[in-house]
């Protein structure tokens, strides 16, 4: 039932896209399209939740399209239901937000048709149940988002971003295609059911794992395949950036789980090594890059990379436990990962919405051009602050809950027999802790520079609060952040069917623990109660405030800032984004992104201002991509000489080919 409904929703998305295509330029179309997407997404969300919580048996559907003699298979089980919910939750929020935000679009006809198509693509990926329709929808998703990245195509950087993006996406698709064709074999078992039925040999399975890691990693932004992400995500309109960062990367995570946990069969213990290493490394690299960005949306994109790293680390843990038959622990790890998927979809969307709001209000994305917005945009700032706290994994919000679960899973590592994993997992834990702390630093910087302090530009001074649709979208998601943070038990129970499907085991039921506490393993081991912590803090904060205001003075006087006695009126004396990240850059930067600071200090008497220039690189780019492109260009240049031969020389090519073949025949014929 719900599968049919979702398929209808997909159809509705496509129809909306068509409508948008036909009447793209009209003013009203924008509201119409986004409103429609909102409604469709809502209904799809309902259907998905129904499928997830009503834990009904998995549903199948076959359409007479796609690969002939097989047809397009679609399938809805607990795993796809969860990600379906994520997709459509994000979609609904984006739709709601864009009803207001989309009105500012300069060329709506370049956005409107592709937005619903993008949503349709993501829905289809999650539902597809044969390799062809999976890759088909996968690439459809990529193409639609590519078109959205190129929405503002006048900008050179955006075009470059779009190009890098689509090439990387095609690379990923081809990797996945190879992985699938390994599993489907020469006789063409193209449906997932057939693939499950044939367990591949260990070597094949290992190759599949590697290819899956490449294919999904390139879409999710796993280092070193992440370079396109900070280019492409910011280039798109903000509600699309939210979708790409918050949702599309999760679709990639889905693909990884589907391939590695579901299709390819029982894992070997060492499978988790690459996943864990990639995850931990990606987390740290991503957040460090985020820390030095000065463009808000780029910063958010890099932080997406970090969160993907966290998720993959969780998946790696689950693999490790699963391979050793520790199903309970595996369930815990997978729950943590999925919980984080959910959280990241929430707060990253809020943050991108906030970025969009700031963009509409000020027209600036550069941190050093902003500041003081907490006065001009009070409501937005509250929601963004909530998201910042959540993404920094601070209690009592949801980011902390998932991180806490991950740590609990890491603490179960002594049960693993293999020494490599025993030693690796705590190290990965250290990386996760490091990235969490750095995330806090990163978002202190972001929020502090953008919303606090004094405006650094006229644009920031004149900023005004954004429309109610956008605020509404942010409000909903921020509220969910808080709820999921103080009531994590419910989320865990909601995830249980999915985990059950992927692992074959689940975490203990949290709903029947009293006081809404969550106890992942045993009460003597660890427990956490977000609600109580939240209540305690509010309680003690309010009583202290009450007591002080009641017993001591409540007098307030406004005065200029003291600033150690020499206040300076110019806002430019504030700490800038670059200067804020300087200590971090000094500590980590010299190796990780070859940051170089060059100070140009004029001699005494010279009136010129002193200048500090900071240069930094993305090592993945310098180390892998530039050499690759260079070598391709070099080869192209060499081959290109063949364009300039004379007719005689071309003839000699033919002649040589003939002689070669004849000789071969003479020798072997």
């Amino acid at each position, binding site marked *: 039932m719900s599968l049919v409904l979702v398929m209808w929703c997909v159809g509705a998305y496509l129809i909306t896209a068509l409508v948008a295509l036909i009447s793209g330029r009209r003013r009203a179309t924008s509201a119409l399209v986004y409103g429609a997407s909102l409604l469709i997404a809502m209904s799809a969300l309902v259907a998905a939740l129904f499928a997830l919580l009503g834990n009904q048996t998995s549903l199948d559907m076959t359409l007479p399209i796609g690969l002939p003699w097989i047809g397009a298979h679609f399938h809805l089980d607990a795993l796809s239901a969860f990600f379906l919910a994520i997709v459509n939750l994000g979609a609904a929020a984006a739709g709601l937000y864009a009803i207001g935000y989309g009105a500012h679009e300069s060329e709506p006809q370049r956005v409107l048709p592709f937005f619903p198509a993008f949503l349709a693509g993501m829905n289809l990926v999650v539902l597809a149940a044969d390799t062809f329709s999976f890759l088909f929808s996968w690439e459809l998703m990529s193409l639609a988002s590519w078109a959205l990245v190129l929405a503002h195509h006048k900008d050179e950087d955006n075009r470059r971003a779009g190009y890098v993006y689509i090439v990387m996406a095609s690379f990923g698709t081809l990797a996945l295609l190879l992985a699938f064709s390994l599993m489907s074999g020469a006789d063409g078992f193209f449906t997932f059911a057939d693939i499950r039925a044939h367990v591949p040999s260990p070597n094949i399975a290992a190759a599949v794992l590697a290819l899956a890691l490449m294919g999904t990693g390139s879409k999710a932004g796993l280092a070193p395949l992440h370079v396109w992400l900070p280019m492409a995500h910011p280039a798109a309109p903000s509600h699309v950036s939210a979708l790409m960062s918050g949702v599309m990367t999760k679709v990639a995570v889905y693909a990884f789980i589907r391939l590695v946990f579901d299709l390819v069969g029982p894992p070997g213990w060492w499978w988790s090594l690459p996943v864990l290493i990639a995850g931990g490394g990606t987390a740290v690299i991503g957040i460090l890059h985020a820390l030095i960005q000065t463009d808000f949306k780029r910063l958010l994109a890099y932080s997406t990379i970090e969160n993907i790293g966290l998720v993959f680390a969780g998946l790696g843990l689950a693999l490790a436990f699963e391979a050793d038959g520790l199903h309970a622990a595996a369930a815990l790890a997978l729950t943590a990962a999925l919980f984080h998927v959910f959280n990241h979809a929430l707060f990253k969307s809020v943050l991108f919405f906030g970025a969009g709001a700031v963009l509409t209000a000020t027209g600036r994305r550069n941190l050093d051009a902003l500041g003081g917005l907490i006065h001009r945009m009070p409501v937005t700032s509250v929601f963004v602050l909530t998201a910042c706290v959540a993404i920094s994994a601070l209690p009592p919000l949801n980011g902390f809950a998932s991180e806490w679960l991950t740590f609990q899973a890491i603490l179960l590592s002594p049960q693993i027999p293999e020494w490599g994993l025993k030693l690796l997992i705590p190290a990965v834990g250290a990386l996760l802790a490091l990235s969490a*702390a750095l995330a806090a630093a990163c978002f202190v910087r972001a929020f502090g520079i953008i919303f606090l302090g004094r405006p650094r530009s006229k644009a920031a001074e004149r900023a005004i609060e954004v429309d109610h649709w956008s605020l509404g979208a942010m409000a909903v998601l921020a509220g969910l952040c808080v709820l999921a943070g103080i009531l994590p038990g419910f989320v865990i129970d909601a995830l249980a069917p999915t985990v059950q499907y992927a692992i074959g085991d689940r975490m203990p039921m949290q709903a029947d623990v009293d006081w809404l506490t969550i106890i992942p393993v045993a009460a003597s081991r660890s427990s956490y109660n977000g609600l109580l912590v939240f209540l305690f*803090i509010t309680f003690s904060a309010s009583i202290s405030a009450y007591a002080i205001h009641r017993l001591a003075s409540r007098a307030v006087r406004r005065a200029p800032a003291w600033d150690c006695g020499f206040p300076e009126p110019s806002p430019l004396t504030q700490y800038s984004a670059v200067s804020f990240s300087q200590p971090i850059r000094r500590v980590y930067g010299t190796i990780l992104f070859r940051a170089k600071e060059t100070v140009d200090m004029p001699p005494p008497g010279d009136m010129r201002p002193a200048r500090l220039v900071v240069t930094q690189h993305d090592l993945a780019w310098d180390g892998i991509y530039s050499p690759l492109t260079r070598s391709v260009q070099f080869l192209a240049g060499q081959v290109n000489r063949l364009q300039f031969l004379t007719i005689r020389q071309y003839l000699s090519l033919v002649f040589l080919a003939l002689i070669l073949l004849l000789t071969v025949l003479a020798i072997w014929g």
Partner: protein
Amino acid sequence: MGVIAGLAVQAMQMLLVLTLAPLLTGLVRRIKAHLLRRRGPSPVQPYRDLVRLLRKEVVLAHNASWLFRSTPYMIFAATWVAAALVPTFAAGLQFSWSADLIVVIALLGSGRFFLALAGMDVGTSFGGIGASREVMIASLAEPAMIMIVFSLALLAGSTQLSYLAGFMTSVGLRVSLGLALIALVMVAIAENGRIPIDNPATHLELTMVHEAMVLEYSGRHLALIELTASLKLLLYMSLIGCVFLPWGLAPAGGAPLDYFIGILAFLVKLTIGAGLLALFETTIAKMRVFRVPDFLSAALMLSLLGALLLFVSRSL
């Protein structure tokens, strides 16, 4: 009955930490002064300061936002809750299950988060300096702390403080625990902004971290922040106490005498801690800000080493 008693113990603990915190700070100052051959202020001086500050009016910078005004209460609450959950004199606190060691650390983290934001709110250069240095320090101190938790939890199989304390009484001497202890002390020094990381007694612009953030605070806000700082110090001391010398802790639902002994033991631990801290601070010099990372990464390495050594020592 049990619940009532439990609640009582919990409430007692909250009040105890709140009342003892300024005293501890005063004590440290006093001992330091003595070691420096000065008379120094009396240990109760911090209480006087607090009262004085509370009476004063608050002077707010013009563009200070609501965040600036509410931060003191938030960080105070967070730290207080955290301190209330660390067993000081009695194990098995009523609400100890609502948060484990990781949560306690994270609560301190959120306190720091808001303090740093508040530092940036007024938009002065010093606030920015303080905030950026603070988060830089934290970015190393927190993982180190988590690693310490790991090595404890991997050993005890729990992150639950009461349980942990109970377990530590039984465990013998271990290399990794030694490493963890050293690392914990280093982290504690850094987190509380003591010498050699930071000097709570100075306002010398270029060296200050914590003070730079709270530069714009005054009156009751400042009072709360001072109180929070001393609470934090107390928290770390009692943490070290309850994890590494957990003797004298009253068991859950013990007799009144146990509780009395527990309190005494706690006081003793605090005094010893204060003495050691003062001694340490007088013997060492403040280090440059950019040496701090080395210090902390040393702590991080130690703690990680401790966590890894566990397996080795286990397998032996």
